[in-house]
């Protein structure tokens, strides 16, 4: 703040001095030049009157010649000073306005206001470095969950776009280079309520630098980074407990899952897709001959993952000099029909357009479907603005570069246990994965699946916490729905199932119904939105929980309890209101 005042005053020096001098000379003149009062006597203007007159003359108000009409000598002087004072005022105001429009000044103001707002932030927030397509999607998802995002991006246009986008909770943005430690400190990396930092710049070196700086400034802070090359990925993973997402690896891995184990593919897709999408049927990918167009990072990653399975791969790559090009690859432009024919498009089961140019990808696939109408087409979409084109083309499968990363990161942020769960599940055999999927479908049915997690602690689940102290509670019991009172003791269980349980360092997949819950256990649950709400109520509201567990109505007031002697726990239990709200 003081920087601004200093800049302001330094620029205003000349106008202010000019103004003071002009006023001084004018006032002195008026005091010296004698006037005439209404009786014809000479009258000397006092400093007070002179100051008064010059003030309203200079500010162009002009009340009049007070207290007596001026003599001609006075009027001469007034003529000169009129122009002098008004012009110096205008000069001063002009300089003031130009200072406020100055880009240095404005930048300083924006930076000050940004750091002040961060300092006053009391809610949890995430720092996002890099506001490309991925950043936009991630910020929107976070905002709809009620988490504030602090966005840093070096491009001023992207930060200005922040204002025009529609966010539920507007994020805070700063146009700066995120790899500098002062910027990260200003963004609140050391603050208590900073939940984590996500660095998703397009440049791997920037992501790496941010990771290093973040590690030095706040080693305990959660870091999720995007890396496009395996070297950068290994680099970032080598220090701290960071999580790295390689968009090409991720999609290549998913695609290979789709070919080998469609249930696993579904699991991945459903758990990390954007909220609001229902569970789809897994795509049926035939094995056979597959053509990959473009051998960049994406094509290369695909080749690595698919090479082990029983599909035969042909690569089409226009650049002869690409490294690691496998033998048998066809050099040529995949957008042209002859090249595709050479790769065997007429017999191929599927084609993947994986170049980094959206127009080329669209062209490849359009040509391909003309040559082979039944071919399974997978497209890579690079830029968000081409979404409607890719949607209109109705490809069988679409990889959106920004969405994959954004959705994966969002899923990790919302449910940190998901990372561990997916890691364990990725080693499952086809049959086990299929089993999990069918159970999930059975629980969720036609609704939108939702994933959430909770830890059994006093603040998060007060009712469950209290109950555990007094009696053993099994997993099955908390999944019971509301019992109907009276004679209808029909139990309805919640549309949810526990996927994963973490107790200290041990992981339990699909915990059994009879497992006893202990304090500090963390659960990852999959279920419907309604089940989420009901479960939250159950875990926070002691009366509800007692009702469910005992199966009968326990009185809530002290008096009645004492009279009837019915008590689940021995101490006085106050009525607790729901603490956990799912989304705002």
């Amino acid at each position, binding site marked *: 703040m003081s920087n601004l005042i200093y800049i302001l005053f*330094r620029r205003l*020096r000349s106008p202010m001095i000019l103004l003071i*001098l002009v006023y001084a000379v004018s006032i002195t003149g008026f005091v010296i030049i004698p006037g005439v009062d209404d009786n014809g006597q000479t009258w000397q203007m*006092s*400093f007070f009157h002179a100051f008064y007159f010059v003030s309203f003359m200079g500010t162009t108000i002009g009340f009049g010649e007070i207290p007596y009409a001026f003599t001609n000598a006075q009027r001469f002087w007034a003529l000169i000073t009129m122009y002098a004072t008004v012009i110096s005022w205008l000069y001063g105001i002009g300089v003031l306005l130009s200072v406020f429009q100055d880009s240095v000044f404005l930048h300083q103001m924006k930076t000050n206001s940004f750091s002040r707002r961060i300092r006053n932030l009391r809610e949890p927030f995430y720092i996002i470095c890099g506001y490309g397509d991925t950043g936009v999607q991630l910020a929107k998802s976070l905002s709809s969950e009620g988490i504030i995002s602090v966005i840093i991006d070096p491009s001023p246009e992207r930060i200005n776009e922040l204002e025009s986008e529609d966010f539920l909770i507007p994020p805070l943005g700063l146009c700066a280079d995120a790899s500098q430690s002062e910027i990260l400190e200003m963004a609140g990396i050391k603050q208590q309520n900073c939940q984590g930092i996500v660095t998703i710049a397009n440049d791997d070196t920037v992501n790496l630098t941010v990771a290093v700086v973040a590690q030095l400034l706040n080693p305990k802070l959660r870091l999720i980074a995007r890396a496009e090359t395996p070297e950068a990925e290994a680099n970032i993973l080598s220090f701290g407990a960071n999580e790295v997402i390689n968009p090409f690896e991720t999609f290549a891995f998913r695609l290979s899952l789709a070919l080998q184990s469609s249930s696993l593919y579904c699991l991945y897709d459903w758990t990390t897709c954007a909220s609001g999408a229902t569970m789809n049927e897994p795509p049926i990918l035939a094995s056979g001959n597959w053509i990959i167009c473009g051998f960049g990072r994406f094509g290369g990653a695909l080749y690595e993952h698919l090479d082990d399975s029983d599909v035969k791969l042909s690569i089409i790559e226009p650049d002869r000099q690409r490294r690691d090009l496998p033998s048998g690859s066809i050099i040529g432009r995949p957008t042209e029909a002859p090249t595709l024919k050479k790769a065997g498009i007429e017999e191929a089961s599927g084609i993947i357009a994986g170049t980094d140019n959206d127009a080329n990808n669209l062209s490849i696939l359009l040509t391909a479907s003309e040559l082979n109408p039944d071919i399974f087409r997978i497209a890579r979409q690079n830029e968000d603005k081409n979404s409607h084109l890719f949607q209109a083309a109705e490809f069988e499968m679409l990889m959106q570069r920004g969405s994959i990363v954004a959705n994966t990161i969002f899923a990790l942020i919302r449910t940190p246990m998901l990372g561990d769960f997916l890691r364990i599940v990725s080693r499952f055999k086809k049959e086990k994965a299929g089993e999990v999927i069918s159970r999930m479908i059975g629980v969720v049915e036609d609704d939108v699946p939702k994933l959430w997690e909770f830890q059994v602690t006093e603040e998060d689940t007060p009712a469950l916490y209290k109950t555990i102290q007094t009696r053993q509670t099994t997993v099955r019991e908390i999944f019971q729905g509301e019992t109907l009172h009276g004679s209808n003791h029909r139990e309805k269980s919640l549309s949810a199932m526990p996927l994963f349980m973490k107790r200290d360092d041990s992981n339990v997949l699909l915990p059994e119904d009879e497992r006893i819950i202990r304090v500090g256990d963390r659960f990852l649950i999959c279920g419907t939105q309604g089940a989420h709400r009901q479960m939250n109520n159950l875990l926070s509201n002691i009366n509800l929980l007692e009702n469910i567990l005992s199966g009968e109505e326990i009185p809530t007031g002290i008096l009645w309890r004492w009279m009837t002697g019915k008590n689940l726990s021995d101490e006085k239990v106050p009525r607790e209101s729901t603490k956990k709200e799912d989304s705002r």
Partner: protein
Amino acid sequence: MNSEKVVFAFFIVLALTLNFGFFLGGMDNAEHHNIYELFAAIVVSLISTVLKVGDRTHLGAVFLATSLVADLQLIAAAIVWGVVANVYNEPLSGHALATVVSLSGGALLANIISVILLISETVSVRK
């Protein structure tokens, strides 16, 4: 020969000298204190304040502070004089005069400190 430093020192010393000139003289005799000199002292004090703003060193901060103190006291003296002469329409004498002179005395002390700082800054510079 740095003209900026000449101007800076000129105004600081001028502020002190005008202030001292106004202050000098008996506290009970209005003829010893010239209103033009008070006016000049205020103007020069304001100009020297403007010159001192914008210096971010510690010394600059103290300079600015002393200048603001002097401004404050001189303007207060002018207000007292103006109110007595124009609102109550009495000539300046007795209690009012003493007030004006003492306020200018206070400003004088602030200006003396300012000049001492200027001297010490000049002495410490080896050039």
